[in-house]
């Protein structure tokens, strides 16, 4: 494989669910290594689907996706898992396993490296305690290591999810609405945390944010997504108020995050294939 400066390259990517529900409608996108990108746009614009394409959970209906210069279309089985290992994802709903202890959720970041047997043994006697402790200290909740995950607050669970990504140590961090279910102060703390991780370890960072203010304040590149296409792709100083109004036209726009801690359900549930 030729090495590539591009972390991601997407060409005319379309994704349809069923026969006529268009989630993505021809996206072209290039993300360089180490770049920090924020995605904004109304609910249902296709951001979650885009993330699922970027972390190889879904495949495009048409168009091409390259990761590190490699066409992901032909990847299956072991090779597909190897590529996925390089991509860490943080989700809005944390997507942790509620009944497991924090330590196991954190260590599951290692699953791409561990053998099946080793992962099973670790469920009984946790391996690499030091590593887990280090990751949890970095996100500031080391003392929660042996608690059951569902006993933690929403913000704490999101930190566990970030610790899992730290353990995974991927090339790319994707974060799909990572802060829309935590309060505003915590939200900017978590965004800062993600940016620090990205800068300290030169990881590519793609984050979708409900809050336009956070996106404009922290990211050098902001992409507006609307109706499955990129409406604009600019540095924040070039983004004008009319552009934002147009992006959210007819949609609820969350500027101040007044809801705070209210849990928001993912607007794009995964459609079943039946």
């Amino acid at each position, binding site marked *: 494989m030729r090495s590539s400066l591009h972390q991601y390259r997407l060409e005319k990517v379309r994704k349809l669910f069923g026969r006529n529900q268009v989630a993505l409608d021809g996206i072209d996108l290039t993300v360089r290594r180490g770049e920090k990108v924020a995605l904004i746009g109304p609910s249902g614009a296709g951001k979650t689907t885009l993330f699922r394409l970027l972390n190889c*959970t879904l495949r495009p209906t048409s168009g091409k996706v390259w990761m590190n210069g490699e066409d992901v279309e032909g990847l299956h089985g072991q090779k597909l898992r190897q590529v996925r290992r390089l991509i860490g*994802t943080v989700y809005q709903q944390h997507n942790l*396993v509620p*009944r497991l202890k924090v330590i196991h959720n954190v260590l599951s*970041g290692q*699953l791409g490296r561990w053998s099946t047997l080793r992962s099973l043994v670790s469920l009984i006697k946790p391996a690499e305690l030091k590593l887990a402790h280090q990751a949890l200290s970095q996100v500031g909740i080391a003392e929660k290591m042996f608690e059951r995950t569902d006993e933690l607050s929403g913000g704490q669970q999101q930190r566990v999810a970030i610790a899992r990504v730290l353990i995974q140590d991927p090339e790319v961090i994707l974060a799909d609405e990572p802060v829309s279910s935590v309060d505003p102060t915590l939200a900017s703390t978590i965004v800062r945390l993600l940016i620090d991780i990205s800068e300290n370890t030169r990881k590519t960072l793609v984050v979708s944010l409900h809050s336009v203010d956070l996106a404009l304040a922290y990211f050098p590149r902001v992409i507006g997504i609307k109706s499955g296409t990129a409406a604009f792709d600019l540095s924040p100083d070039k983004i004008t108020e009319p552009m934002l109004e147009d992006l959210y036209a007819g949609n609820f726009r969350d500027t101040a995050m007044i809801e705070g801690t209210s849990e928001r359900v993912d607007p794009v549930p995964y459609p079943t294939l039946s």
Partner: protein
Amino acid sequence: MNESTQSLIRPSPKSLFPYLFIALFILAFVDSWRRAGIEPLVLFERQGREHLWKFITGMFPPDLSWNFLSLMVRPALETIQISLWGTLIAVLIGFPLGLLGTQTLVIRGILNEAELQGAPVRRSLRYGLYFLARGVLSLFRSIPEFVWAFMFVRAVGLGPFPGVLAIGVAYGGMLGKVYSEIFEGVNYRPLEALQSLGANKLQIFFYGWFPQALPNFVSYTLYRWECAVRASAILGLVGAGGLGQQIEISMRMFNFNEVLTILIMLFFMVATVDYLSAKVRALL
């Protein structure tokens, strides 16, 4: 199917279907009355009355003599032991087949989408596995454990072992089906996250699937164990050991007071198992 149910809920004046359905429903019962040979009055005829009376009075008082009770200890223990091993074998059969029979694990949904799109060979292999597992499971459970026991008695001879096998196979079929339903019911989001960081299917299963399914998994398995205690008593009737064999012997000798003793023992055994499983469930 969907339309017909809807018309049942809101019958339109033009549709004859609901009336037809109700007529068929009633007809089914009327006809079955005749063909099932239901004659309630026979129960109260002189002969029926006398037999019933003889059976019931014969049961009292139950035989609680030390002599008989000490004879029953072994068969009672045997019943429990049959149920234990029968259930264990059922889990060993039901668990892997239930896994392969879980649609969201094998053939569809977000955990298979990237894996199976554009991979026709892989896809047909997965579908083959899925239908094979489903087929074996329904075969195992559609044959009653009584019939299985009958066959295994022929195969391995009289005694508790055919009972163990019968429960293992028949209950394996039931457990497998229910396991797959439990597995399909778990929240897929944590699983999606594990997949996206590079975990394989087994790792996803043990880190995401199983922990979420554990309470239901354990409580259903324990419930089946309770059923197995009862079943292993019945299986004795075809010569598969345990208390059932004793019931059969006592019945044949018209010692109904012994039958009652055994039924009381069975009641306490099932109650104990129920109590134990409630304790375990409370721990989860």
